[in-house]
């Protein structure tokens, strides 16, 4: 509100008061010179001037400060928005990279799985071949051992039979080696020795 508007207001108020002049002349005069609400005109003028000065000072100094603070704040908010925008862009970029990585990882995983399958097949074939070779070798060894055991058992049996036969023969021979038989054996030896030639050292 400008100073002119305030002056008109004060004037209207003063004219309103003058319209109620029924109370008497003294009272009116006192009211004009000592109105506690309006005060002295000088005060009004000085007050208005001071107000205007302060208002002007406010317009002159305060408004720029407010504008400056507002601009600062706007700048700060703008900066923050820019930072946020940048962060958002970075995040979106990161997201894109991650998505790309995930895509590559999937491809790599498939390649690794395929390679592992191939290697597993090779290892399986190798193990199968080795197992077959081991089985063949074990079978061969078992055959040899069985054959050896068979021969050993046969030899043991043969030796046992031979020992039993000899024991029995020895017993029979001793049983039959009577004096006459002994004499006959000696005579037989003498006769055979006399009929042959023996070289001596």
């Amino acid at each position, binding site marked *: 509100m400008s100073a002119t508007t305030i002056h008109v207001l004060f004037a209207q108020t003063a004219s309103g008061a003058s319209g109620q002049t029924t109370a008497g002349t003294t009272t009116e005069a006192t009211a004009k010179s000592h109105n506690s609400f309006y005060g002295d005109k000088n005060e009004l003028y000085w007050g208005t001037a001071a107000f205007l000065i302060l208002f002007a000072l406010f317009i002159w100094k305060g408004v720029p400060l407010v504008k400056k603070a507002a601009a600062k704040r706007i700048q700060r908010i703008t900066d923050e928005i820019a930072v946020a925008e940048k962060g958002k862009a970075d995040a979106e970029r990161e997201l894109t990279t991650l998505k790309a990585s995930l895509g590559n990882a999937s491809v790599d995983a498939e390649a690794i799985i395929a390679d592992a399958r191939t290697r597993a097949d090779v290892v399986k074939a190798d193990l199968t071949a080795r197992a077959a070779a081991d089985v063949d070798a074990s079978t061969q060894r078992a055959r040899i051992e069985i054959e050896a055991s068979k021969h050993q058992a046969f030899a043991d049996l043969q030796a046992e039979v031979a020992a039993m036969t000899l024991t029995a023969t020895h017993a029979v021979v001793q049983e039959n080696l009577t004096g006459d038989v002994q004499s006959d054996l*000696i005579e037989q030896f*003498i006769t055979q020795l*006399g009929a042959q030639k*023996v070289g*001596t*050292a």
Partner: protein
Amino acid sequence: MSDLVQSYAGAFHAIAAAEGNLAVVEEELFRVGQALEANDELRSTLGDLSIPAARRQQVIEDVLGGKASATTTGLVSLVVGAGRGADLPAIVRALVDRSAASRNRAVAEVRSAVPLSADQTTRLAAAITAATGKDVEIKVVIDPSVLGGLVTQIGDTVIDGSVRHRLNQVREAIA
């Protein structure tokens, strides 16, 4: 055969000849030698120098006393007392060979499970002579392990006609 054994055999031969009973002493020494060869413990005892000589000689007196001539007992006691008891079988063998050689004969050692009669011994000597061309003197050793028949050894030649040998052949054949 070592010089020592030959020296002892020569001394035994000379002493027995001087005593005039060479054949008897030779036969008795042969039996003693066979007994020692067959008895490891006796041979070991007589050759053990940790046993005093008098003790070893006393063993000889106990074993041969009254069973052999004084010459034989004395000779064996001499060898055992000198610590040569383990060499006694070799000395006796050398003595027998020396005695036979002095009569231009070889020694035929005959092992039999049973004793041979005089007739069998004579005919065996003749058979050996016919087979080898050598005159031999038969030394019979009773060896039950022969079982039956005879085993004759002349020098290094062995003629084995024993039942034991035939059983061994059977064993080898069926083993």
